[in-house]
């Protein structure tokens, strides 16, 4: 509302304050959990008390104990160590896929928005059609055809989420492209690369990063889903989804081997959502 913005306007003699990002506590907790898992994924081998593939206990589906902090799995392996190693697969694959998907999508989206014309039309139509395939199903079909390996998983997940990222970035860029400051730059005689990198990109960066976070969550979910169906990361390695699948038989008596991997997935995805939801609105919807 005008009166508010009018009265809060910085008066002329104050020092430039610079960007200050204020998160509320929910956002901070989210960020802390995200950083925690990133650290675990990086330092995995140094943290795990046992080799993740080694059977350490003859008692399968063992309870939480001082030796095995999160119990043991269906073969008697230490769940704590396996979750730490699983973080590498879950976080690593999802991060690689989301980075690829968003980079390709955003670059293509900005080019399409600025160039317009047939390039925009053909690309948009094609990628829209591509979006007509349900994501989990796409994963199923590809894995059925070429088998599952980590590069295949990364590329499949990238292929699934690139069109969405393209569509999102294009919509933002189209909005910015109609703004007067872009028209001014164009009237000045600037070329397309300048328009994209200097005028448009800085103004869609915030929402694009927020979108990247949400897309990361979706990728973690689909990856876990695939692994849960036995089509993701293959044994003896296991991401969190595969850990749940391996130990699903323990579900009927509530074994910690099912519960802790599930908690790991949920803690990561919920934290990302919490963090994104509580980003300062300034970053989240600068385009609006």
């Amino acid at each position, binding site marked *: *509302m*005008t*009166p*508010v*913005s*009018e*009265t*809060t*306007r*910085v008066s*002329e003699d104050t020092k*430039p*304050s610079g960007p200050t990002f*204020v998160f509320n506590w929910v956002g901070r907790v989210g960020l802390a959990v995200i950083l925690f898992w990133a650290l675990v994924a990086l330092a995995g081998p140094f943290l795990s008390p046992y080799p993740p593939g080694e059977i350490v206990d003859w008692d399968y589906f063992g309870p939480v104990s001082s030796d095995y902090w999160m119990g043991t799995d269906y073969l008697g392996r230490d769940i704590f160590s396996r979750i730490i190693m699983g973080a590498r697969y879950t976080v690593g694959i999802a991060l690689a896929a989301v980075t690829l998907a968003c980079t390709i999508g955003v670059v293509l989206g900005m080019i399409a928005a600025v160039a317009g014309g047939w390039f925009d039309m053909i690309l948009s139509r094609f990628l829209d059609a591509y979006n007509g395939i349900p994501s989990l199903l796409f994963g199923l079909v590809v894995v059925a055809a070429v088998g599952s390996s980590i590069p295949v998983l990364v590329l499949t997940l990238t292929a699934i989420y690139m069109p969405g990222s393209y569509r999102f970035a294009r919509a933002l860029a189209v909005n910015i492209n109609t*703004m*007067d*400051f872009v*028209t*001014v*730059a*164009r*009237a*000045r*005689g*600037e070329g397309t690369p300048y328009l994209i990198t*200097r*005028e448009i990109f*800085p*103004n869609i*960066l915030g929402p694009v990063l927020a979108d990247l976070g949400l897309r990361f969550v979706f990728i973690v979910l689909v990856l876990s889903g695939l692994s849960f169906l036995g089509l993701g990361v293959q044994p003896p390695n296991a991401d969190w989804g595969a850990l749940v699948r391996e130990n699903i038989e323990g579900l009927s008596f509530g074994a910690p081997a099912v519960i802790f991997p599930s908690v790991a997935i949920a803690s990561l995805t919920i934290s990302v959502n919490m963090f994104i939801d509580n980003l300062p*609105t*300034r970053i989240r919807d*600068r385009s609006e």
Partner: protein
Amino acid sequence: MTGTHTKPPLVSVRDLKIGAVTDSGREVEIIKGVDFDIAPGEILALIGESGSGKTTIALALMGHTRTGCSIDGGQIRIGDNDVTAMSRRARARIRGTEVSYVPQSAAAAFNPSMRIIDQVIETTEIHKLMPKAQARSKAVELFRALALPDADTIGNRYPHQVSGGQLQRLSAAMALISDPQLVIFDEPTTALDVTTQIEVLRAFKSIMAQGGCAGVYVSHDLAVVAQIADRIVVLRGGEVQEEGTTEQILTAPTHPYTKELLAAFEPLPHQSVAIAEAEDQSPILEARNLFAGYGAMRNGEPAAKVLQDVSFTLERGRNLGVIGESGSGKSTLARALAGILSPYSGEVLLDGHRLHPDLTGRSKEDLRRMQIVFQLADTALNPGHSVGNILARPLTFYHGLRGKTREKRVIELLDMVHLPANMRHRAPSELSGGQKQRVNLARALAAEPELVLCDEITSALDTVVAAAILDLLKELQTELGLSYMFISHDLSTVEAICDDVLVMFKGEVVEALPAHEMSEFATHPYSRLLISSIPRLDTGWLAGLEQDPELIAQFANR
């Protein structure tokens, strides 16, 4: 207070304080203890610029505050109702019955999926005031009183089937259906063209005179208020600056701010800048039979033709004004000249040499010599860059400046538009509206142009700020020998800065005259209508104004 207040006032506002929570969570007081009274049947105007709190006060009279705001202190009394002390439910009971509201944009305030008549009589239905049939016939009476065409059937339409000026009058009918004691008009004519504004204003004035109910008229435009209000409260920054009868505020203002407002309303007429020039120099800008439009091209013509056969010349050192209402094609003209929208026929000549219709075909030098400045500085400055970067880019692009020399030039440019040098580290979002428009102008100057196309650059600004920008433009012209093409919907602004004026109507130039002859010697009927429709700072202007109804029917954008 004036002597007419022998009866107890209908409305009394005492020490009203309204607070707001900003985006960053800080609490600020936006209304800082406001007092005023309104007598029964009296129309009080709340005058102020953006941020003065006039709309906030008007809404508070209905016990309503927008998201983030709250009434923190003071008292509002309407008749026997203490609005500030009432429960939510009780407030809902007086809304529409005791106090009603005419919104700024009727086009947005009508529900697009309901018939107009159902919305007009909804108040009577909510508060169970009268049977439906009676409400309908009362609504039709009101439509007639508001001079709406097809009064019997207009209510059966949907909002998007009715013009803006008619919707504004329909919203007045919606407010008056319940015979309220007080009607709040919230800038009801601001969004309308001047020729439409007249009719709406007339309708409001006559119906308020018949009804005998009191009114609050919120506006930023003193001339409009002069026609309809009995008394004026001048607001600034949430505080009352001056209060008095309309006559007294207009003729004998006491507060310096009121004087400033009045002064800004009538800027000094333009003195042509004498530039020593060679005898046979070609005009700086010339347009010959320009046609332009939007949409898909078919047989060499676009789907929507906007500009039709526009020709003019602009001599070096002179200023050309272009006036017209919304849809007249004046902004399209600026875009066609700048090559942003390439004209499909006709030519543009800069300093005697023909420009490529599309800007991609123009040389960097051609682009540099003619710069365009847009209306909304908010959207014309990239929020992702600092002011310094914004000004530096054209310096690098056109003149190849870098490092210290560029920095020095940025500071010079800021100085030229009277902004402090340290402003270059700021982001555009930290600047006020007037400051942004100065930066916007400085960016055009960075190219060292010979001609600047100004597209409504003062229209979004408050009057006082706009007057300062006009002064700056004049000053820059004498310093730098610029020529301006100045596009505006406001004749007085154009008169203040231009030597010659083009009047545009539906994409055509209907009249071209020297600016100082405009008011007296304009001959085209549309020009006459436009000139006569501009409100004057004179309480008797509207009452004394006689316009040919046929002319209005022919030309007004109703």
